[in-house]
């Protein structure tokens, strides 16, 4: 009898889970954590209301833009041989797929290179095919103002004298009512993350939290950006299993151990 009790307990104990050990901080964990931290740090901070010069020489304040509708801000520089152009192309492509530009938000791309003039940026916008889009603006500003803006949105840049190139991240900051609501880091603007951002800008609650590189094996539901709907995921089986297994075990126990003569 004692052996039976012990075996049953051992079986259940093993079923409940093995002995645990602390998870070491892997490189991947660290990078994911730091990405999340970098994206989270500026959230809900105020953005300096700087004056911007547009290619036609017109001067506007950022509040003129975010006073109308949410504003997405990107920082770049024209002579970048690295990530700036690919990032803007990626943003353009994702904006086209997701939509909402003009109706839900506007975009402004500002150069942080003091060498860039407003006129240069107009030509640069033309090379991207964006110079005729009234809802995606390009511009420059006073270097100190740009520096303050960059700090507010968690962006940094540093000139490498040997190459003449700037060291900098690629970042998209979403601003509503003068406050940062979302930040997306990365050279590529992923469609599902941008979809989240746009819905957030519309004031909707965002019911999904996928992050790049996050290894979540079992989810309850998954967001499908194309159909814009939630779909069942494998994790839902975990919610079905206990009920089905309990019924199965009950049927098994009653069939195997019932003694009709004892009734």
């Amino acid at each position, binding site marked *: 009898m004692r052996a039976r009790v012990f075996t049953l307990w051992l079986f259940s104990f093993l079923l409940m889970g093995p002995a645990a050990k602390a998870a070491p901080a892997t490189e991947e964990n660290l990078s994911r954590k730091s990405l999340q931290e970098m994206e989270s740090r500026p959230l809900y901070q105020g953005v300096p209301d700087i004056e911007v010069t547009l290619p036609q020489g017109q001067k506007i304040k950022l509040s003129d833009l975010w006073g109308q509708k949410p504003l997405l801000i990107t920082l770049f520089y024209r002579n970048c041989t690295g990530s700036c152009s690919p990032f803007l192309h990626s943003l353009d492509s994702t904006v086209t797929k997701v939509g909402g530009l003009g109706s839900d938000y506007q975009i402004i791309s500002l150069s942080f290179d003091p060498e860039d003039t407003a006129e240069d940026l107009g030509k640069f916008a033309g090379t991207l095919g964006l110079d005729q889009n009234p809802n995606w603006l390009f511009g420059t500003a006073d270097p100190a103002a740009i520096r303050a803006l960059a700090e507010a949105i968690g962006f940094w840049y540093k000139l490498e004298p040997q190459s003449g190139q700037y060291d900098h991240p690629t970042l998209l900051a979403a601003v509503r009512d003068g406050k940062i609501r979302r930040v997306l880091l990365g050279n590529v603007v992923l469609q599902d993350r941008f979809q989240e951002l746009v819905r957030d800008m519309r004031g909707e609650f965002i019911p999904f939290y996928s992050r790049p590189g996050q290894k979540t094996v079992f989810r309850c539901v998954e967001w499908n950006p194309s159909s814009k709907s939630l779909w069942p995921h494998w994790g839902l089986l975990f919610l079905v299993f206990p009920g089905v297994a309990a019924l199965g075990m009950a049927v098994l126990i009653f069939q195997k151990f*019932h003694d009709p003569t004892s009734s």
Partner: protein
Amino acid sequence: MDLAKRNTLNWIGLTFTLFPALVLMGMFMRAIQAERLSSAQGWFYPIMTLHGIGMAGLWWVAALACASRVLAKYTNPSEKISRFAIYGTVMGVLLLFACVFLGRFAAGWYFLYPLPFKGNWPAWSSITFLLSLTVLGSTWLVWTLDLLLSIARKYSLSEALGWHYIRGKTSPEVPPVVLITTVSLIAGVACLLSGVIVLVLYFYELLAHVNNDALLMKNLTFFFGHLLVNLSLYLAVGVIYDVFPHYTGRPWKSNKVVAIAWNAVLAIVIFAYFHHLYMDFAQPTSFQYIGQIASYMSSIPSAVVTVFGAMALVYRAPVKWNLGFSLLFLGMLGWGIGGIGAVIDSTIAVNSKFHNTLWVPAHFHTYMIEGLVLMVLGYFYHYCQEKAQITENLKLQKITIALFLIGGYGFLLMFYLSGARSVPRRFALYPSELSHGVFYSQISLFFISLFLLGLILYLVETGRRWKKAYAR
């Protein structure tokens, strides 16, 4: 002394040791909120964790111990496994004490993912907490399966669930406690299996360095936690069906209505926990509606059938209103009253307003303190008195009951009033704009003192009988 009696008395002894300690912890939290112990606010959340999980676990095993004892009249559950369950429970409780008192683990009794990994407590205390749940869960699973096995030996599944009553037959006669306990145990296996999955996923994250889905973990946690509390109540209600005839002299038998009501519980109860996720907007909307409907359907039929049946049984019956029967009767009514609160809370339109206010602890404390606790304490008194046969001081017992009622409902009223005035739950100290929360906490200290006084009188009364029963 035979093992069955020893086991029951040990379960009673364990309850009598842990319950006053956990009540004091609750009082400690209210004292912090009342600004009487503000300097101890660093202990608020560790104590909240221990108080919550301690109470939920304690009353689950206490209700299971009651059901096991009553079930033994009709079946033959293993007393060795019951004894093993005591050891496992004590071991799990000691681990829990270690992680809270030594490690200051404070993720709350829901231990919502990823809180166990995100707090300011050391990693070992999180692991000890998970191990504690592993020990408790595996022990209770063995005990639950053994009780189910004891029923299976005598009854077929359709008999144990009373399906022949639904088909219009009246034989074989199946005592209601067997039917209700079978329903509760099958759902209990599902509950404990969901606990298994959630723990495996926690350990999997620790070992394989993957992330879990917060929504999935919350679903599983409430599948486990909600059902555990829900089933504790049902197990205690099953005991009432068996003990009431002893006092009223009238039989309380299974019939078609009883069978339908309790089978509805089995079919629906595992979906009711969805109402804990109304504020989780990622949860598919259909689940939210299922949660509301399941909450209504799993509780209303069984409560109506039970309360109506109990009233009919008691009406003009020559009942001796001693401590045992009074507590059982009042506990059943408290279950009904708390159940109404729970049904209101599970209504989406109401929940969206009251969620995370003190109105939520108000309703679950109602069916715990004035429902489950009174029913179990009533049965424990009944059992000890049956074994000890000591002359009863009914006057003292009435004072005890009055203190339980005035202290308990007064304490609950402060929660309800706070909730109605938007005082949030889980705040250790209230900011100045919520100073009325401090006021209600201060008054609740008075009512908790009354309840504690009642508990002391109860422990003296029942403790004497427990001691004599142990000596015999």
